[in-house]
C-alpha cells in the first residue's frame, strides 16, 4: 500500500507516493527524474548526492524520504534561474573547477547552504564544507578557488544590493 506526502521541491509543491523506506535520493532520481543529484557510494562519504533540505546540506542517500512532509528541498536543477547560472555555478566555470563534473552538483549544493547560512565563511569553513566531498579529478585546488570566488562575488552582490536599497 503506497503512502503519500507533500513537500516543496525546487519551489514547486509536489505530492508524492512512495513505498516506505526510500531515500530522498531514490525519490529524486527514480521518481522525479531529477538526475542532477548523483549516486556515488550510498553511505554519505562521497557527497555526490548532496542537496539542500530546509536550508541545510544533507546527503540525500542517507535521508529517509518519509520524514520530509512539508520540507523545502533544493537540488542542482533548482539553482539556475531563467537560464542564468547561479554565482556559485559561474564561479566553478570561471575557476575551471569542473573536470568530470560528477561530484560538482553535490559540492555546489553544499556551498549554497554554507554561503546562505554564513555569507562571510572563512577559508576554514570552506575547507570543512569541502571535506564532506570526494573529487578524484581536480586535486581540489580549483574547487577551493571557485568556492572563494563564489563567496566574494555573493558578498559583493549583497553589498551592492544593500547600497541600492539605501538610495
Amino acid at each position, binding site marked *: 500500500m503506497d503512502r503519500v506526502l507533500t513537500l516543496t521541491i525546487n519551489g514547486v509543491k509536489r505530492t508524492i507516493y512512495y*513505498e516506505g523506506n526510500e531515500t530522498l535520493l531514490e525519490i529524486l*532520481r527514480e521518481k522525479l*527524474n*531529477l*538526475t*542532477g*543529484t*548523483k*549516486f*556515488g*557510494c*550510498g*553511505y554519505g*562519504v*562521497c557527497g*555526490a548526492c548532496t542537496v539542500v533540505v530546509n536550508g541545510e546540506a544533507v546527503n540525500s542517500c542517507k535521508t529517509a524520504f518519509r520524514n520530509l512532509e512539508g520540507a523545502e528541498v533544493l*537540488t*542542482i*536543477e533548482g*539553482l*539556475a534561474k531563467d537560464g542564468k*547560472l547561479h554565482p556559485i*555555478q559561474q564561479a*566553478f*566555470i570561471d575557476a*575551471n573547477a*569542473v*573536470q*568530470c*563534473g*560528477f*561530484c*560538482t*552538483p553535490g559540492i*555546489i549544493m553544499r556551498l549554497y547552504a554554507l554561503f546562505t547560512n554564513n555569507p562571510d565563511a572563512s577559508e576554514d569553513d570552506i*575547507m570543512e564544507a*569541502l*571535506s564532506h*566531498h*570526494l*573529487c*578524484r*579529478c*581536480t*586535486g*581540489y*585546488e*580549483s*574547487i*577551493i578557488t571557485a568556492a572563494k570566488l563564489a563567496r566574494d562575488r555573493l558578498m559583493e552582490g549583497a553589498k551592492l544590493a544593500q547600497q541600492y536599497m539605501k538610495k
Partner: protein
Amino acid sequence: MAFKYVGRDIQRPDAIERVTGKAIFIDDIRLPHMLHAKVLRSKYAHARIVSIDTSEAESMPGVYKVITGRDREPIYYGDLIKDKTPLAVDKVRHIGDAVAVVVADTERHARRALNKIKVEYEPLPVYVDALDAMKDGAVLIHENSDKYFRVSDFYRPVPNTNIATKYEIHKGDVRQGFEDADLVLEREFNFSHMSSAAIEVHAAISLVKEDGTVEVWTTNVGPFVVRETVAEMFGIPISDVRVHVPYIGGCFGYKSDPSIEPLVAYISSFVPGYPVKLRLTREEDFTSTLIGRGIRERVKIGVTKEGKFTAFEAELYLSTGAYADTGAPVIVGAVQSSGGAYEFPNAHVVGYLVYTNTPPVGALRAYGHPEPQFALERMVDIIARELGISPMELRRKNFLKEGRRNVVGEVFKSSDGDLFKCLANVEEAIFSGEKPKEDKDYYYGRGLAALIKAPIAPPFAAKSCHIKFNVDGSVSVNMSGADVGQGLFTEVRQIAAEALKMPPEKVRVYTEIDTQFSPWEWQTVGSAFTLQGGNAIIKAANKAIRMLKETASKVLKRDIEVLEYDGEYVYDKSYPSVRVAVKDICRGYVTEDGTVIGDVVQVSADFRMPGAQRPDPKTGMGRTGVSYTMGVQGCEIRIEKKTGKVIVDKFATSLDVGKVISPSNIRGQVLGGSLMGLGEALTEGIRFDSNGKIVNANLVKYKLPTVYDIPKEHIVKFVETPDAIGPFGARGMAEHPVIGVPPAILNAIYDAIGHDFYEVPVTPEKIKDALEKGGKS
C-alpha cells in the same frame, strides 16, 4: 611559431552542462521498457559450484528472468586472452565473481529476488599473492589455461602453473654488466593493489533487439573495443553492434577495458526487446570491475664508483587476479618501463603475469609505470647514498638523453624532452633553501623521483577526426575521444581552431560518442589523445583547407599555390581583394550560369604512431613507446611524531610536455594526478584477508585523499621542448603526474626518519612502527 588559440585557456565547452546537473551520465539514461539487473556475487574466492537453485527467486514479484552460467554453452571472451565467461560456469575465482543474475522490473525487486537464490560451493585453496600462486603444487586457478584462445603466441602460458603469461627482455650482456660494476645492490619492493575509484561507479545498459542487433550504453572509454567484444560473443558482424558513451564521471583506467559490458550484453540476450540496466554498488565497483597495480619486484642494479649504471636485472610478479586478459598489457608495460628514465647498457627483465584469487587487474592511470619506477627511484636514492654522491648527481649521470637507449633499445632524440631542465626546476623549487630542522612535533624530509612514460598501445591504435564545414562557415568536429574530465573537448576545440584559423566559438565539438556516427578509434587511453588525436585534427583540417582552396582556385581562376586561407576567406596572396568567402564555398559556389563549383567540404583523417612496433618475440625489444614524456617530481614533507602522519608541505612537478595546449587544464591534470599518487603512497591500497576478501571495499576504509590531504603548496613547471611528431610540439601528459609521487614521498620519508620503506602505501601505523623499532626517536 606564434599561436592564436593553443597555449591559452578557453572555457570548457561542456562546463555549463556539468555545473547545472544536465550532463547525462549513464545512470541518468531512462529507456522505454527498461528492466534492471542485479548480480549474485561469489562469497568464496576460489570454489567449485556444486549447485545453484533459482526456483524461489523466479517466482518473486517483478522478476522476468533468473540467469546462471549454466543456462547456455559458455562464451569465453577477452581481447588478448579469452579466459573469462560472463557468469561463472563450474568455478568461482574471486570474491565478487558473477554467479547468477536476476532481471526484474525494478532494482528493488531484483535485489529481493537475489536473496532467494541458493548456491552450494565446495571451497578450494585461495591465493591472493602471485608468489603463493606460483609455488610448486599450487592448485590451478584455470585448469585449461593452455586451451584458451590467445591473440598471439606472445601471450602463451606456462603449462600446469598459474602463470598466465611471461614477458622477457634482454639487452646487452647483463652478466658482464655486473662484472663491470663496483657496487651491486639488490632489493625487493611491493606496490599494493589500488582502485581507480572514480566517483561514478560502473554501469551499462544493453538491448538485444528482435532482429539480432545489439545496442549498448556504457561508461567505457573504449566503445569500439566493447563493440568488437560484444559482436564476437554473439557471433554477429561488428556493424550490428552500436555502442553509446554518454558523459563519464571519471575513468582513471578501470573504465577503459570491457569489464561489465560483456555481462550486461549477455544478460540482455535472455530478454530480447528489453533494455537491461546494471548499475553496480560501490562495493561491486571495488570487487567486480577491475583493480590496478599489485606488482612485486626484485631489482638488482650494478653501478661503477663514479656512478655510471652498468647493469639492470629485475623480476616482476603481477598478481593479476582471476582473469588475465586485462592484466597482460600491464605486465608488458611494466617490463618495458622498468628501466625508467635511465640508460642501462645491459638489462635482463622478466615479468610474470600470475593468476590469483583476487579481482582481475586492469588499467589504472599510467599502469605498468608507477610500479617499477617506484622500485627504481627508491633504488637510485639508496645507491646514491651508498656511493656518497647526491641523488641529483647520480640521476644526471644516467638520465636518458640524445643517443642513449632505454631498456627496450629505443634511441632517444633531443626532441624527446629534457630531464635535466625538469630536475633543475624541482631542485630549485624544493632543495634550494635550508631544510627545516627537526622540532618537538615533527621530522622533516625531502625527496625526489624522475619519471617517464609512453602510451602502452598496440601499434594499430589510432584516433580519427571528421570535420564538417557548415554552410555558414562554422565547423563541426566529430571524434571518439571520451572527455572523462581531462578536458579533451576543450583541447579538440583549441587545436581545431588553431589548425582551421578560426575562433573557437565557431568550432563545435561533438560530446556523445556513438559508434554508429563517430569515427573509429581504439580507446581514449595512455595519455595518447593529445598526440594522436591532435595530429588527426590537423590532418583533417589541412585536407579541408585544401578542398576550400581547390574550389577557390576555380572560382577565382588562380593557381592553388598563390591562394591563402584565413578562416573566413580564400584569397590571392598578392592581391588580397581577390577573394571568396569560405561560407560561399561551403554553401556550394554558384557561378554566373547557375552551375555549382566544388565538393561538399567534409573530410576525415586519422593518425597512428609512426614506426610503432610489437616487441620482438625473442628479445622482447622494439620500438614500443615512440613518444615518451619525462619529468621529475619532488617534495618536502613533515612527519608528525605523535601519529606518524605525513604532511606534504611542498610538492613540485616539472614535466617536459613539448607544448602546453591549455594551461589551466594541464595544471588540473598535474594536481589531480599527483594527489592520486599521494593516495597511493600514503592512504589507499586494497587489503585482502587470507580468504581473498577485500577488507576495505568501501569509501570509508579505502581512503581517497580529501581536501585536507592536498600539499600546502604545489609548484608546477613545464618544460617545452617541441616533440618531433606531436601536434604543435605537444606530448601526452595526463597520467604522468601519478608516477613519481610514491618514490618521491618514500625517499623523503627516509630523509626525515632514516627508514627505508619498500612497499606502498606507507600508513601512519607503519611509520609509527618504524619509529618505535629504531628509526629516529
